[in-house]
């Protein structure tokens, strides 16, 4: 019961922080935005430049950061619980590298210029295909270790293909376009990207809804969980698809954004008593918060142009990951 109170308090604080950060994020950028004036304009008779910035750029950018971050945090918690491994990331089943490969293919062959949705659709297709490959290789009845190894192999292969395309790129401009996309950024998103992001995200989240219970049971081991009524093959299928959809959509729109899915569940796990079902929603909220903060950070950094947000999350995430490994090694011994 005390745990339930603590859980509510955690979610309330995260929720409060999200609202404040989101509002701040609307006002910050290359052009400072007086929020009240922009709102007045938006609801008033004549649309001004402030309302345009707000509704066409800042709101979509903030919402995309919120949704993509939430998907990454949520799916990180899902994968770690499903694989019973604290070092699992949402990209492990191939969704992230698959999305990258799909998006790069559309850039490389110039489909991206044909119509607005080509690049994210390519990314989605790549994510689904890569996840399906991992699933067929190991997901149906293979153990956790087989699954992780298959994920590593598929990821490596997808990234090798990305490198091949970079290698063969016809012009330095194409190389630059691909490389910059890979860095992960929210700088050039608009309402279109928001519409592209939404369906897969919502579908993915719905698939995860109410799967906390079987994830709790998995804590006790796969055999015990299945003896306690968890339908593991079904659970795996469902969660693989969910992660492919949610993370695939996020990566397709933002480019590669590392470490949020890995780090956020870790930070929050001790605060929810290590219980997988209680970790899911806080992780989504934490992911949303972290990506919004990182995206605000890159807008505030006093450098020429803008540092890509994916670079920032990895810059912070990688040392944390290292600390995590060392910390875990210490505890196991």
């Amino acid at each position: 019961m005390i745990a339930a109170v603590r859980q509510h308090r955690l979610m309330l604080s995260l929720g409060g922080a999200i609202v404040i950060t989101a509002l701040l994020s609307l006002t910050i950028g290359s052009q400072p935005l007086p929020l009240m004036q922009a709102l007045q304009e938006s609801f008033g008779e004549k649309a001004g430049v402030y309302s345009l910035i707000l509704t066409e750029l800042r709101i979509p950018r903030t919402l995309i950061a919120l949704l993509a971050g939430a998907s990454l945090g949520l799916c990180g918690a899902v994968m770690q619980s499903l694989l019973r491994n604290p070092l699992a990331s949402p990209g492990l089943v191939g969704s992230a590298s698959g999305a990258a490969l799909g998006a790069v293919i559309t850039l490389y062959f110039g489909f991206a210029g044909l119509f607005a949705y080509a690049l994210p659709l390519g990314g989605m297709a790549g994510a689904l295909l890569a996840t399906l490959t991992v699933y067929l290789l190991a997901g149906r009845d293979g153990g956790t270790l087989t699954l992780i190894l298959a994920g590593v192999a598929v990821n490596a292969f997808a990234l090798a293909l990305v490198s091949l395309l970079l290698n063969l790129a016809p012009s330095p401009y194409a190389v630059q376009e691909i490389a910059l996309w890979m860095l992960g950024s929210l700088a050039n998103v608009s309402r279109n990207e928001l519409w592209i992001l939404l369906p897969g995200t919502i579908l993915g989240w719905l698939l995860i809804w109410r799967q906390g219970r079987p994830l709790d049971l998995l804590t006790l081991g796969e055999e015990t969980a299945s003896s306690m009524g968890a339908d593991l093959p079904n659970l795996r299928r469902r969660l693989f698809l969910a992660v492919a959809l949610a993370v695939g959509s996020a990566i397709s729109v933002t480019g590669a954004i590392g470490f949020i899915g890995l780090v956020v569940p870790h930070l929050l796990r001790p605060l929810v008593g290590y219980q997988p079902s209680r970790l899911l929603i806080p992780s989504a909220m934490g992911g949303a918060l972290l990506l919004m903060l990182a995206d605000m950070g890159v807008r505030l950094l006093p450098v020429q142009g803008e540092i890509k947000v994916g670079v920032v999350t990895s810059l912070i995430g990688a040392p944390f990951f290292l600390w995590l490994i060392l910390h875990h090694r210490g505890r196991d011994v």
Partner: protein
Amino acid sequence: MSLLNGRALSLSRGQRPILKDVDMTLQPGEMLGLIGPNGAGKSTLLRILAGVIEPDAGELTLDGQGVESLPHQARARRIAYLPQLSEIAWPMSVERIIELGRTPHLEPWQSVGDEDREIIDRVTRQTDLLAFRDRAFNTLSGGEQARVLLARALVTEPDILLADEPVSALDPAHQLDVMNLLRQHCENGHSVIVVLHDLSLAAHYCHRLQLLHQGSTLAEGSAEAVLNEKNLADAYDIALTKTNGKVLKPTSLPWRRLHKDD
């Protein structure tokens, strides 16, 4: 009618047969001991009964009905399985882990209610874990962990409890406690199948023994009937020690629990 009934259960891994045409039956209120040397197929049989693995051949019925026709959760409410080794993935508290045992009784949107709470409290007391409720599982000793996992299985209040060597990590006093708890589960009208290596514990506590050897049933029946010289020599390659030319009764136990209410 028997509660659980397995007929001609067989399983092979590759070319190697692990179980060969094993029959088994379990009555309500009965405690059945599965004994046999390492690799005899005891754990495999238990996992088949738990629904964790499927046999290659044979049929399994619960109350005369094919087990495979039962939905996962309905089966989990009636049959609980306590595996030999259980690695807990996250350092959750003892209380939360025991609570998980009520999951088969809960709908996906339900959380643990007052009635569940009462059962959890009672079992926590019976398993001597009240003092450990808030401790993280991974900070407990092996014996304490084994009791937490038993408590998790007991709070399910299953008709059939399948326990794979539940006492192997325990000191003698806690071994007797666990066996008494299993026995108590039977006295409440439920049934237990327990895999044991300690033959005197098996003889003392179980209503009936089934001796497996190389994947087949070598003997089955009362302790006196099963634990005879020929069976022990065939299955375990051991001989009974004789005192003054007489074999000790297999049911005589060298120790009993002190200072513990029965």
